[in-house]
């Protein structure tokens, strides 16, 4: 590994590290219950929830670690944590 002068790293380069493999439980939306409030997006510590064009949200399972904060905080109970089968 080349060590750069001053240890300089590229911004946002942790994208190379897909943390989705850490996940035990997969969050899944029930779009019938979702009220589009956006709380899940703001409380995600892994920036793995993004807004879709239709104002619903979607997961980026490449990075979601399955912590379950989104499901715990969802006021409409629209997120279910489903056991990952490998």
């Amino acid at each position, binding site marked *: *590994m*080349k*060590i*750069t002068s001053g*240890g300089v*790293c*590229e*911004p*946002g*380069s*942790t*994208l*190379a*590290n*897909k*943390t989705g493999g*850490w*996940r035990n439980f997969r969050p899944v939306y029930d779009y019938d219950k979702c009220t*589009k*409030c*956006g709380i899940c*997006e*703001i*409380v995600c*510590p*892994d*920036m*793995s929830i993004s*807004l879709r064009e239709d*104002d619903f949200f979607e997961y*980026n399972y*490449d*990075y979601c*670690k*399955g*912590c*379950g*904060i989104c*499901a*715990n*905080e969802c006021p409409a109970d629209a997120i279910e*944590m489903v056991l990952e089968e490998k």
Partner: protein
Amino acid sequence: MSKPAPKTYLAPGHRGCAGCCDALAAKFMLMGTGPNTIVVNPTGCLEVMTTPFPESAWKVPWIHSLFENGGAVASGVEAALKALGRKEGIKVIGVGGDGSTMDIGIRSLSGAFERGHDITYVCVDNEAYMNTGIQRSSGTPFDASTTTSPPGKISFGNPRPKKNMPAIMVAHGSPYVATTSIGYPRDMIKKVKKATEIEGPAYIHAHAPCPTGWGFDGSKTIEMAKLAVETCLWPMYEMENGELTQVKKVKNPKPVEEYLRAQKRFKHLFTMDGGDEEIKKIQATADWNIEFYGLQ
């Protein structure tokens, strides 16, 4: 749909635990500061898990300092920008954990505030040295169990109360000192934004429950942060030029027991003889907060 969340400048792929409080604190902080920000980050969990060389999760200029000189490096960055005539519109923000802020780095932070540099410092307080294996810090609350303050025959855990760091920063003559919590993202974003807009050294103290260190499930990070506020163990307030200007009111405070029972670090209070008396002492702290800050 409610107001969309502001853009953040922290990338996924960082190595924080599932449900990491530091990642949330950094995310909200950057939502408040926006892109024209230089971040100075002393050693700690946040630094280690966001920048495993040769990668970095930060999408803004970021520099790692030692534990003890976060305040000095932030001062230097600010002074250099001023000397170059490039300070206009650029926010210099220091962010460290409770260890690097309240223990090891307090000297250089004190210097930075005393000299009046135009910086904002955010303390992400997860109440122990989590990165090195949950050792007690001066931010650890009374009776919490850590690896260096274990409960046993002669002790109920940490024998000292939590240090009142915001009061120390107020005593420096800081124009803006605020406490916030990651359980209230909009509050934290608003306060960080306000702090960076104020001229002079501003201080934000953010309460951040750590699932790994405190012993609760990673899905409960936000819930635990809210519980600390709802039990009045973590008062949220703003102080401008030494005056208390805003307080988050708690209408019906919950008993502290509810907060303590949810965490492994306080488990011994419910199993050891005399634990009841200790819980009463913690409740007294909450009652003092209600009285002193006028939380009701």
